[in-house]
């Protein structure tokens, strides 16, 4: 601004100076955030692409990608992964949709219990579930096979179940994937106006017909979206297939990528094998957005009221029994198996006072040297990631929800982009990016920190963005009219309203870090082991008792934090301001 103009309108210039200088600082912070976010994803992916497309001398080649098709040791795992993921998607939807309907729309007893148990299977780390099912249904040592032989007086090696098969993998995967479908469908049903079903009833439709013709079609987008989530999750999961497929002598694409980093490493091929996983994820997330984002399903708000619950009459208890039996598979049986393995000397022995022992607890807590270091690493990483991630998500989501800067769309894209990068692919990319100069992070906790931050950021960002959106801008504008600056408003108005959302986001990042395995398994070194990696290592050496103790400790911490998040988050819901 020239001095002449300033003289001409001194008042206006003064009036502008205050807020705009504040905005400039905010702008600089946002640009820094944007660059950091860009680097977070772009750098590993660039290296990934570079390695996939070059040979050892750095010359361009398509050979790595071509081998994905021609080499059956790569094509077969990809095929198996697709078969497993498709089955998991279908099974999850078939199991979760009816349970969600029972819980949201009928007078089935124990609906809250079912919700709690599903939350429990939601937060159970999948690799822990896989190990528990190993204890239960390994062909020889599995408890279920043991009982089966004992019941029918059969010789050893005869078995009912073999968990080390494609079918076993599909089963265990589905156990911990179906809650994703359940949450989406139950949410959709909870939010569906009761009028939709009442209108059908008053026209003469019996309850089952209303469920079939009205409720189901309206919930269909949520069911499809849930299937896609379950499919993607299963496709990109490392822990479960590593535990179940490797002993069964087959590979999925994620275990194959991991094995390409074992001696002798072949990073070029691993990078190439990551490409289809990455592309498929991006495409399917686009599809999911389209399915859920269709605005044709907009509904005019009225006095919707509580949905009337369908009376199941004499089907009430059978329905509950069905849900309960289904939930024994991800929760009841595995938790029992873990508990039993933790406190008995050997798995197969019957539970009695003589077989009770504390030796696993003692071993894990006092004798096994990696435990202490791993716990320490995990807590440090979890706290650091949760704090940084929440802060970053808070700043970026404020900028995008309020459209503060011109590039808010780009920021939004950068903050959500990591969703499309599977953990194992990110692990490969980070490994390639930070094992060489200028910045060598491999072997330090920093590389794990970057991995966790990248993986957990999108969920925290989306949660906080929706929290910002639920606070009407007029609440801020009212404050500004009284002369409060942006920072002051942040402190006096936004912070109290956002508190519960922020705490919840922090807790969920914390939990996410504690259970992450697929990126960590690519990036850890002897000094930077975390709990999930220690559990995975112990599984390789077959020490199920120690695993169970560690797993139960992990679960206890997780449940404590989920409980805390729900207490704090739940207490804040009533106060969320929303103009009529």
């Amino acid at each position, binding site marked *: 601004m020239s001095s002449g103009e300033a003289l001409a309108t001194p008042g206006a210039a003064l009036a502008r100076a205050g807020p705009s200088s504040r905005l400039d600082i905010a702008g600089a912070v946002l640009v820094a955030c944007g660059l950091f976010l860009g680097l977070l994803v772009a750098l590993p992916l660039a290296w990934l692409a570079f390695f996939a497309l070059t040979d050892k001398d750095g010359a361009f080649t398509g050979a790595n990608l071509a081998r994905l098709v021609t080499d059956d040791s790569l094509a077969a795992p990809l095929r198996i992964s697709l078969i497993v993921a498709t089955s998991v998607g279908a099974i999850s939807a078939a199991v979760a949709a009816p349970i969600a309907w029972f819980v949201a729309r009928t007078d089935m007893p124990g609906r809250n219990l079912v919700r709690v148990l599903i939350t429990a299977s939601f937060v159970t780390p999948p690799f822990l579930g896989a190990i528990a099912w190993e204890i239960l249904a390994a062909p020889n040592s599995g408890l279920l096979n043991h009982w089966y032989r004992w019941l029918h007086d059969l010789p050893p090696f005869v078995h009912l179940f073999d968990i080390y098969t494609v079918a076993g993998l599909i089963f265990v995967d589905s156990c911990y994937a179906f809650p994703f479908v359940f949450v989406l469908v139950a949410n959709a049903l909870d939010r569906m*106006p009761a*009028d*939709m079903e*009442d*209108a*059908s*009833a*008053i*026209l*003469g*439709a*019996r*309850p089952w*017909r209303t469920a079939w*013709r*009205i409720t189901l*079609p*309206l919930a*269909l987008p949520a069911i499809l979206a849930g299937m896609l989530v379950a499919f993607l999750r299963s496709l990109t999961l490392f822990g479960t297939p590593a535990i179940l497929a490797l002993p069964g002598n087959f590979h999925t694409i994620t275990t194959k990528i991991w094995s390409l980093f074992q001696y002798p490493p072949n990073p070029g091929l691993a990078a190439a094998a990551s490409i289809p996983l990455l592309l498929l994820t991006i495409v399917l997330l686009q599809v999911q957005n389209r399915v859920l984002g269709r*605005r*044709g*399903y*907009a*509904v*005019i*708000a*009225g*006095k*919707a009221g509580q949905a*009337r619950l369908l009376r199941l009459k004499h089907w009430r208890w059978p329905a509950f029994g069905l849900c309960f039996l289904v939930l024994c598979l991800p929760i009841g049986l595995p938790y029992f198996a873990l508990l039993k393995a933790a406190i008995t000397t050997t798995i197969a022995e019957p539970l009695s006072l003589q077989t009770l022992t504390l030796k696993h607890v003692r071993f894990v807590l006092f004798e096994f040297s990696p435990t202490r270091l791993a716990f320490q690493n995990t807590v440090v990483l979890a706290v650091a990631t949760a704090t940084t991630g929440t802060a970053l998500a808070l700043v970026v989501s404020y900028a995008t929800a309020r459209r503060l800067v011109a590039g808010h769309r780009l920021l939004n894209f950068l903050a959500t982009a990591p969703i499309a990068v599977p953990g194992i692919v990110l692990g490969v990319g980070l490994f390639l990016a930070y094992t060489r100069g200028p910045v060598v992070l491999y072997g330090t906790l920093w590389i794990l920190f970057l991995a966790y931050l990248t993986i957990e950021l999108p969920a925290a960002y989306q949660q906080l963005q929706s929290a910002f959106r639920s606070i009407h801008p007029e609440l801020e504008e009212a404050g500004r009219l009284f002369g409060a600056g942006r920072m002051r408003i942040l402190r006096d108005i936004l912070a109290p309203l956002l508190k519960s959302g922020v705490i919840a986001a922090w807790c969920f990042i914390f939990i996410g870090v504690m259970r992450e395995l697929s990126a960590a398994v690519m990036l850890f070194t002897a000094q930077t082991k975390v709990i999930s990696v220690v559990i995975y290592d112990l599984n390789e050496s077959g020490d199920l008792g120690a695993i169970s103790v560690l797993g139960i400790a992990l679960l206890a911490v997780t449940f404590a934090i989920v409980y805390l998040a729900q207490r704090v988050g739940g207490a804040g819901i009533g106060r969320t301001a929303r103009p009529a």
Partner: protein
Amino acid sequence: MAGELPDVPRSATVRQRSFPFDRCIPLMAKVELVRLSKSYGGQPAVDGIDLEIPDGVLACLLGPSGCGKTTTLRLIAGFVEPDTGEVRVGGALLSSRERTLAPEFRRMSMVFQSYALWPHMTVAENVAYGLRLRGMPREEVRRRVDAILSVTRLSTLSGRYPGELSGGQQQRAALARALAVEPQTLLLDEPLSNLDANLREEMRFEIRRLHDAYRYTTVYVTHDQAEAMTAADLIVVMNGGRIEQAGSPQDIYQHPRSRFVASFIGGTNILEGEVLARDTVALDGLVLRCREGEAEGERAAVSIRHHEVQLSGEPFGAETNGAAGTVVRQIYLGAHRDYLVALAGGTQLRASAPMELDLAPGTSIYVYLPPENCRLLAA
């Protein structure tokens, strides 16, 4: 299911895929509510109401929000079960404390405040839904859908999805869906509250026109007295879960029985004073003879509408019902002038006066409250 059906004669032939109506509701649809109550968490929403709506009548449940009118409608529909009392339609018992016939067996249809059009079906499919449920042949369904869509002026929009319609079109589609099944009872829950003012006025007449054409017994819930005045044969004013007064629009307006009804329907002055005789009340230098109502106790309230108060620059010279006052405020409203007049003791009166009477605030003025327009109100 059979256990839920009321004791009414079943027709001899029940087709396999057919609709269960012929087993439950007789054709005459007089709606009766008998000492009907419903409370939520100890708080009565509907508090022992008695009401009879004759066959073919359009009745408006009118009242402020929270007065229990929507709960009453949902009790009639069977979405809500009564704590005590009965709902009878055409003499058949549909709801009581012991058994409530499910909504799908009631031969009713309903227009919801949110319209509740199913977003995954086109307008035509929405309208055809109820007809298909009745096992009607495809040809017949199409014929009836076409007919009702042309009556509601939606023929050109039959292939659209609800999300692609304007508010008024959605409202007509919801009405078409409800009318297509030829219900015995039609229920309307604030059907116009989501429309803008112009459309609302137009749709008021539309609903009345369709009712005159089909003559279904209709229960119409609204909080808008103009809507009730335009559409209803019978207005039922509700307050605090009870019925304050039921009658024709003219009856309700001209002969309000309670203070609530008088002030809720149209503007009115409520004047409270000392009882001198069964038909005479005194206040603030004013002795009011009332042609209507009877005073009980020592104090009573009198209602007189704004436009019934007469104003003049000269004394009226009547023995009672007149007084002198001062103009407090005068507003020019185009068709008339709106006056606020203070009497000697401070009592304030609102009155509409003709354009010709133009007195500035502060000038003295004479008021006359004709006995035939003064109504003594029940406490």
